[in-house]
């Protein structure tokens, strides 16, 4: 029996958990009491994570499609098939016809090698992580405004703040551990302001609760900024010294009108004023937002960053901005350059100097052209010309944003899937390579607070080749001899490729609870809070946000705003959830009451329209309509229709091409709702 500290593979909080294991069996899982991110608390998913390690549904041998059926084959046969097919596709269509996509649950080592294979072996920047449609906006915004594409604050700051400003994230579902931090902080006297379009568990406990209409956030932030300005809460000195565009931003702020904004948001003006005043008065105010479980308009996020800068609280304990990721290694796969426009360490593919560095490191110069995104591949209006696609721990079919991915998948001449379990994508795969499951895997994840930490193997299945190893083997077939014999070797190269990882080695990760980047030779212990040890002049870039125009409304006959989002836990139809009995049961609790899926609508609306819980409801946009089941709940605000991502029928019917922008919090779909005779 042994007790091994590892990192939870679900959300981005990066909870420290122990696995108890015996030779070849995982016996249980429990939290670390002193890990700084979770301090003894983990959510239901963490408590059942060991079930993933014991499911017999694990893939153990490669599967190759023969006569239409996936059949178990030896590794050599599968690798040979894949290399030959890749070579043939590349020679016929060129490197731009290949795409390499990773899910946000790949380890840093796997992700790094995947993008290296794409760039070095096949000469393409067609590399992306599958959640780019949602997340990359947030990263871009942070990179542009703060020059660092990650959260400046850390989770512990939630416990240190005087005021928490929760911006449109359902913490009880997406990052329950952080939700717990908020409840505990509130119990010890921290004031909580929450902006949400759902009455979720955490928002309901906030001292000030703002429920704006979806799509009106810019007015709300504008109005808050205006109150900050009017009451003298803006740290003008900080803005003048450290921020570019401060004057323009302050000018644009003054154009907002509280009463008008309140009317558009449908939030009482006093409440906005109260929230803004509380935020302005707080000695240390922390804003919590999400990198996007739902896609958001970049301007929305810029407005949030502006609010953080206006108080000048960055780099202070218990203050600033905490941007939460929903997957265990979303931060890491981005850091590793699994992005079509960035090499490892967010080096733009257009930066010549940096490219020289990679040429030295890799012996090959990556192409100076941004690649295609996952959205281009699966949700693009037309074919992006991709003929071969490599999917590592990524299944586009479980994402509503890619509800029509199967069209693109059918066109593929080669679809390679690397997964620990057979997921829906298997139906389209030509080859499936097993991956180590959680508990077998060795590597590192980077959490939402930039914490690079080990995920450790506790049981060993020699028959399964880890992702990096298979890819290294593939590279070898194409004449590239890479000398990695273990994940630590890959990390040694990552240290050279990613400057802010340069101080991280497996040795150093054995102490304490990982290292938070930037972790360099000069700062071997890593960096807890960004910007804590001083700021440079004009370091930040603010973005002026003009008063938006009222969105085009299709007319009074479409009074409801429909948004897609999370429901239940942030689980999708996750392969992980499907392989744990208790998680699956909990995931289905609501679904069992509404076996055909559901959309949520407020009781007052339901009563007025004679819509009953559990009964059929018809939703129509000016273009399309769909019939589904109503779930009548006061968790959603009046005037909105909330569609969980997994209710694909609605997504498919109402999701318009250019998918990621429509039906989001920033741009709801206007619909009408009526009861439907059964």
């Amino acid at each position, binding site marked *: *029996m042994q007790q091994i*500290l590892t990192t939870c593979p679900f959300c981005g909080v990066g909870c420290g958990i122990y696995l108890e294991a015996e030779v070849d069996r995982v016996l249980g899982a429990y939290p670390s*009491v*002193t890990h700084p991110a979770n301090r003894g*608390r983990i959510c239901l998913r963490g408590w059942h994570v060991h079930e993933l390690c014991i499911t017999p549904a694990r893939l153990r041998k490669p599967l190759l499609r023969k006569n239409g059926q996936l059949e178990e084959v030896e590794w050599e046969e599968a690798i040979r098939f894949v290399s030959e097919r890749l070579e043939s596709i590349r020679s016929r269509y060129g490197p731009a016809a290949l795409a390499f996509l990773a899910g946000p649950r790949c380890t840093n080592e796997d992700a790094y090698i995947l993008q290296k294979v794409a760039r070095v072996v096949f000469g393409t920047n067609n590399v992306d992580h599958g959640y780019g449609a949602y997340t990359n906006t947030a990263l871009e915004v942070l990179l542009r405004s703060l020059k660092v594409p990650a959260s400046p604050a850390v989770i512990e700051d939630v416990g240190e703040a005087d005021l928490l400003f929760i911006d449109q994230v359902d913490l009880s579902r997406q990052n329950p551990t952080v*939700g717990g*931090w908020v409840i505990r902080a509130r119990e010890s006297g921290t004031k909580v302001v929450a902006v949400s379009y759902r009455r979720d568990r955490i928002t309901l406990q906030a001292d000030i609760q703002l429920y704006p209409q979806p799509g009106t956030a810019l007015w709300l932030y504008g109005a808050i900024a205006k109150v900050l300005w009017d009451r003298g809460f803006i740290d003008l000195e900080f803005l003048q010294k450290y921020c570019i565009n401060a004057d323009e931003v302050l000018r644009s702020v003054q154009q907002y009108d509280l009463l008008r904004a309140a009317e558009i948001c449908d939030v009482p003006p006093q409440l906005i004023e109260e929230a803004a005043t509380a935020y302005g008065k707080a000695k240390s105010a922390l804003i919590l937002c999400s990198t996007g479980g739902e896609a958001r308009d970049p301007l929305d996020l810029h407005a949030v960053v502006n609010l953080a800068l206006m108080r000048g609280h960055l780099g202070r304990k218990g203050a600033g901005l905490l941007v939460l990721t929903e997957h265990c290694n979303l931060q890491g796969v981005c850091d590793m350059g699994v992005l079509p426009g960035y090499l490892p360490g967010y080096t733009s593919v257009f930066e010549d100097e940096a490219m020289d560095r990679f040429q030295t490191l890799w012996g090959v110069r990556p192409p100076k052209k941004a690649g295609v995104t996952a959205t281009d591949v699966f949700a693009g209006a037309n074919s992006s010309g991709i003929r071969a696609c490599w999917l590592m721990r990524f299944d586009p079919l479980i994402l509503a944003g890619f509800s029509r991915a199967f069209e693109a998948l059918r066109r593929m001449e080669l679809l390679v899937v690397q997964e620990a379990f057979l997921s829906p994508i298997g139906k389209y795969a030509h080859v499936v390579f097993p991956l180590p499951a959680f508990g077998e895997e060795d590597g590192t994840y980077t959490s939402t607070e930039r914490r690079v930490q080990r995920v450790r193997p506790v049981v060993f299945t020699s028959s399964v080749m880890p992702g990096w190893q298979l890819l290294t083997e593939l590279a070898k077939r194409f004449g590239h001899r890479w000398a990695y014999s273990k994940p630590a070797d890959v990390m040694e190269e990552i240290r050279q490729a990613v400057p802010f990882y340069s101080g991280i080695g497996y040795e150093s990760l054995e102490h304490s609870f990982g290292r938070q980047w930037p972790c360099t030779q000069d700062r071997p212990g890593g960096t807890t809070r960004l910007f804590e040890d001083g700021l440079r002049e004009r370091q930040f870039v603010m973005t002026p946000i003009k008063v938006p125009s009222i969105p085009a409304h299709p007319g009074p006959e479409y009074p409801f705003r429909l948004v897609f989002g999370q429901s239940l836990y942030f689980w999708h139809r996750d392969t992980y959830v499907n392989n744990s009995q208790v998680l699956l049961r909990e995931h289905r609790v609501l679904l*069992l009451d509404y076996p055909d899926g559901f959309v949520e609508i407020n009781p007052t609306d339901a009563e007025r329209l004679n819509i009953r819980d559990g009964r059929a409801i018809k939703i129509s946009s000016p273009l399309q309509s769909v019939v589904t089941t109503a779930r009548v709940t006061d968790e959603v605000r009046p005037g909105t229709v909330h569609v969980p991502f997994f209710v694909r029928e609605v997504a498919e019917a109402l999701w318009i091409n250019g998918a990621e922008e429509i039906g989001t919090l920033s741009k709801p779909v206007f619909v009408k709702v009526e009861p439907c005779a059964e």
Partner: protein
Amino acid sequence: MRARLINRDDIVKLVRILMREYEVVAPFCSRGSDTVFDVVTEENIDKIQLHVRNPIYPPKRFVLPHVEQMFEFQMSEVGVSAIPTYNEKPRALFGIRSCDIAGIKHLDNFFLGREFVDPYYLRQRRNLFLVNVVCTEIGTDVGEYCFCLCADTGPAARDGFDLQLMDLGDVWMVVAGTERGSRYLDLEFMARGDDSHIKLRREILSRVRHQFFDKQTSWFSAAMRLITRLEVSESTWEKIGRRCLECGGCSFVCPTCSCFTVDDRRVSAGKAIRMRLWDSCALGGFTRMAGGFNPRKAVHDRRNRRFFHKLAYQFVLRDGSIGCVGCGRCAVVCHGAIGMPSVVEIIRRQELGSQD
């Protein structure tokens, strides 16, 4: 009471002797100030911790594992056989705290003391040798969330152990609680003590008890009365329920919680296994029936349930003891800070209006 004295340095010898018969599990330090129960080997035997924060992962897992295989089913054309898969490994828990001893006693009564005897529990329990260590150091043994004094389970267990060790400063006192335990009192490094040691034991325990009052307390009695009489208002339960994020952690770490669910898994064409896994009444799916009816749909109904089962007098009668041993683990793992002490306090304040 049969007792002996042992030098601190000889404790390792005792462990080695136990290792001849048992797989010995003892507390160790891990990352940060985490502590874990782990198997003692020749490599780590010197690192066993006697004064240490009680590990969060409760030792109940050695009688009721987190995941436990119950059967292997072999299915063929000619028949089906259900082969029970028992774990009968002899195991000694070295350094189990008094609160956890009380937890195991509670589980014994539940799994073995009723009409139906649980065969899996029984086999693991009768092969389990318990070496209790009395909590004498404030700050390490007695952590910030401990309240065994209020649950009357510690700092020194009165029974339920095979052997009990207590730090008297210069020497340790060894007490045998069972016949099985008393065999070890005859080892050559065990010395006889005298009345002064008994006196010292009393003094130390009295000191520790008094120091407890600076720590967490949980005044059960009012809460038990109110819960038993169903006098806790719905709004109080709602207030408590709102803070529950439905992780199930409180049940998993609780030394007396025993609910489980059962899951079948197909391993290969003719083979399947049935296993049981820890379950929690905090979860929405816990009571939901296949037809769709859920008697405890609201989260506060489920929280209400937890505390009713732990504290209602009817259950105390049925189970033989209250369902809380004062280990404080639920207070550590709860996201919403609604572990047992806080809930008792919320109920007291809400229903009785007490301000202190």
